[in-house]
C-alpha cells in the first residue's frame, strides 16, 4: 500500500464513526486550546519585555560593583564608613539594603587594565527630592541613570542628547499634566526644576530642559525621569556640595565592552572581573532574571495544558482500541489480501495522528482567536497604562510546535491500538464474530 493511500484510508476511517471521533477531537481541542493560550501569554509578555529591553540599558554595557561580602556565617559585619548601597543599572536597581564597598579610583584602574574592557566610568547616583515646573506644585520623582545607548520609549519628543552641554531631561508621561502642562508638545521645550538635598542638608536646585516625554513601562526608565549626561553631572555636583565623606564615591561603575565578541567573550570578561573581586551584570542578566520568572510561570501553566493533553491521549487510545475491535475482520481481510503488519500499524497510527491534528488545528485556531480578542480587550482596559503590551501574542514557531507536539502525543497514544491491530492473526480475525 502506498503511503498516500495509507494516509487517505486513515483519514477516511477517522470519519467512519463520527460521534466518537468528534468527542475525542473535542478532548484534544481543550488541551490544545489551553496550551495555545498559555503559550501565547508567555510570548506576549516576553515580547513586551524584549521591546522594553533597549530602555533599560545599552547592550555593550555592564554594571560592575564589588562583590557583596558573605554575612550569613561571619556574624555581624564590621562598620565601614565608606560603604554605599548596592545598586545596579537603571532607575530601579536591586537595592536590597545591602551595602558594598565603593568603587575607588584604584578599582577603576584595575578594571580598565582588563583587556576586553573598552572604557570604565563610575556610575553617578543622584537622589532627587522633587520636581516642579514654573513654580507649580512639587512632585516626588526619581531620576534614572541614563547611559548613552539606552533608549527611552518615547510618547513624544526626542531622546536625551548625551553630548549636549545643557541639562536635558525626558519626563514620564504621568508627570505632564500634574506639572501644569496642557499637552506633551507644550511640555517639550519647557524647563523643569529639580530639587535635592546636599551633604549639608541644604536644598539645591538644578534646571533642565524637557526634550521628550516617555511612555510608562513595565521596567526601566518609564516611571522615572531620564537625564542626559550634563544633567546627571549637574545633579551629582549639586548633591556633593559641602560633602566630606563618601559623596565622591560610586557604588558601581559602568564598563563598556564589545558585545560582538560573543557570549563566551562576555562570560570571560565577567569571570575576570569576578577574579578581581567584582560582580558584573549585563543588561541581558537583568532582563534574563525577569524573563526567567515569566518563563517559569508559563511553564507551570503549560504543564497543566499538557496534563489535559495526556488525558486526551488516553481518549485516543480508547477510541482506537474500540475501532480496532470493531474492525477486527476488516484488518484480518486486509492482512489475508497481503497487507503487511507495518502498513496496518501505519494505518492506525496515522489515524491517531490525524485525530491529533484535527483537535490541535481547531484548538490552536480558536485559541488564537480567543487569545487575540482577550489580549486586545485587556490592552485597552486593564493594561491601558502599559502601551505596547499585548498580553497574549502568538508567533508561528510556537503555534506550529503546539500542533506538532499534540500530533506526537496522538501518535504515541495510537501506537498501543495500532500495535494490537498489527499483531492480529488474519485467520483469527476472520473467524471473529
Amino acid at each position, binding site marked *: 500500500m502506498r503511503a498516500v493511500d495509507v494516509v487517505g484510508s486513515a483519514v477516511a476511517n477517522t470519519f467512519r464513526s463520527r460521534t466518537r471521533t468528534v468527542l475525542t477531537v473535542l478532548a484534544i481541542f481543550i488541551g490544545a486550546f489551553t496550551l495555545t493560550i498559555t503559550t501565547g501569554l508567555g510570548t506576549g509578555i516576553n515580547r513586551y519585555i524584549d521591546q522594553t529591553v533597549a530602555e533599560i540599558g545599552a547592550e555593550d554595557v555592564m554594571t560592575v560593583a564589588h562583590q557583596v561580602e558573605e554575612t550569613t556565617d561571619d556574624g555581624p559585619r564590621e562598620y565601614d564608613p565608606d560603604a554605599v548601597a548596592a545598586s545596579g543599572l537603571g532607575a530601579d536597581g536591586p537595592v536590597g539594603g545591602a551595602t558594598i564597598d565603593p568603587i575607588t579610583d584604584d578599582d577603576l584602574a584595575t578594571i580598565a587594565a582588563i583587556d576586553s574592557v573598552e572604557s570604565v566610568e563610575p556610575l553617578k547616583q543622584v537622589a532627587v527630592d522633587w520636581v516642579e515646573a514654573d513654580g507649580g506644585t512639587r512632585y516626588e520623582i526619581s531620576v534614572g541613570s541614563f547611559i548613552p545607548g539606552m533608549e527611552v520609549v518615547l510618547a513624544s519628543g526626542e531622546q536625551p542628547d548625551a553630548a549636549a552641554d545643557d541639562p536635558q531631561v525626558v519626563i514620564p508621561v504621568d508627570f505632564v499634566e500634574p506639572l501644569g502642562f496642557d499637552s506633551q508638545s507644550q511640555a517639550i521645550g519647557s524647563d523643569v526644576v529639580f530639587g535635592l538635598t546636599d551633604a549639608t542638608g541644604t536644598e539645591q536646585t538644578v534646571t533642565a530642559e524637557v526634550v521628550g516625554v516617555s511612555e510608562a513601562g513595565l521596567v526601566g526608565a518609564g516611571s522615572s525621569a531620564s537625564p542626559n549626561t550634563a544633567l546627571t553631572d549637574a545633579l551629582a555636583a549639586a548633591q556633593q556640595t559641602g560633602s566630606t565623606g563618601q559623596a565622591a564615591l560610586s557604588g558601581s561603575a559602568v564598563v563598556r565592552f564589545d558585545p560582538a565578541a560573543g557570549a563566551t567573550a562576555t562570560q570571560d570578561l565577567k569571570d575576570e572581573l569576578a577574579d578581581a573581586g567584582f560582580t558584573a551584570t549585563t543588561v541581558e542578566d537583568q532582563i534574563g532574571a525577569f524573563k526567567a520568572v515569566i518563563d517559569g510561570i508559563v511553564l507551570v501553566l503549560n504543564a497543566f495544558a499538557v496534563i489535559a493533553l495526556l488525558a486526551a491521549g488516553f481518549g485516543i487510545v480508547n477510541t482506537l482500541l474500540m475501532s480496532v475491535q470493531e474492525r477486527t475482520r476488516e484488518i*484480518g481481510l486486509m492482512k489475508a489480501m497481503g497487507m503487511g503488519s507495518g502498513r496496518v500499524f501505519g494505518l492506525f497510527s496515522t489515524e491517531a495522528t490525524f485525530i491529533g491534528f484535527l483537535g490541535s488545528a481547531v484548538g490552536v485556531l480558536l485559541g488564537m482567536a480567543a487569545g487575540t480578542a482577550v489580549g486586545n480587550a485587556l490592552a485597552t482596559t486593564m493594561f491601558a497604562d502599559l502601551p505596547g503590551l499585548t498580553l497574549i501574542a502568538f508567533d508561528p514557531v510556537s503555534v506550529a510546535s503546539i500542533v506538532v507536539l499534540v500530533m506526537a502525543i496522538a501518535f504515541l497514544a495510537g501506537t498501543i491500538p495500532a500495535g494490537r491491530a498489527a499483531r492480529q492473526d488474519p485467520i483469527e480475525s476472520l473467524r471473529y464474530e
Partner: protein
Amino acid sequence: MPTPVLRAVDLHRSYGRGPTRFDALKGVDVEVHAGEALAIVGKSGSGKSTLMHLLALLDRPTSGHVDLNGAAADRLRGRELNRVRNRTFGFVFQQFFLTPSATVLENVILPLKIAGVGRTERKRRGMAVLEQLDLADKARNRARDLSGGQKQRVVIARALVNDPQVIFADEPTGNLDTATGAAVEDLLFGLNRERGITLVVVTHDDDLAARCDRRITVRDGRIEASDPAAEGRTGSDSGDAGRTAEELAA
C-alpha cells in the same frame, strides 16, 4: 503432467501444547491443478478450513510443506509472502467482509490499494471488473445498501480484481438463499471455465461440491477416500481447463 498450482505434502497442523494439544490436520496430501475446481468438504471441525488456510498461505503448517507453482512456499517471509498472496489469490468468504460504509468500488479495489496500484489504474480495473459482473451501476452505492446476492457478487469482484491464479471460496453460498446462491455458483464456475481460474471451494454443501471437478473429504484431520469416479474424471478436466487458461493467456 504439469506442475500443480498448489501441492501440500504431509501437512500437520496442531494447536496448543501438552494435554490441551489439538491436532487439526494429521498428515494431508493434496494437489490442486491449474484450472480445476476443487471442493474441500467435511463437517465443521473436520479441519477443512485449516487446510484451506494452509493452502492459501495464511497459516504455517506444524510440519509438512506447501509448494506454490512448484516452489516451496515456506521460504517466503513477510513482504514477499504478502506480495505473493496479494497477486496469486482471491478470497470469497461466507460473511462477505465488506466495509459497509465504503462504496462498492472502494471495496472492490482494496486488493489493488494494498498492492500499491495507482489511483487511476485502480479505478479503471475496478470498474472493468464491476462491469463484467453487471455491478457497474452500483459502483457508487454504499456496500451496506446492497442485497445479499449483490454483496456476494461484489466480494467476487474483489477477489477477481487482482487477476488471481486461484480463488479460495469459503462457503460462498452459505449466507444466500437457493436462487441467489445458484447464481453466485454459476458466476464462480463460469470464471473457472472461461478464464481458467483455479477454484478451491470449502463447503459442507453436497450440491455445490458436486458441481466441482473433484472433491476431497476431510474427516478428523485426514483425507477420506475420494469418489474414485470423480477422481478419474478430474485428470482430463483439469487438463482441458489448463489449456483453456493457456489459450486465454495467449
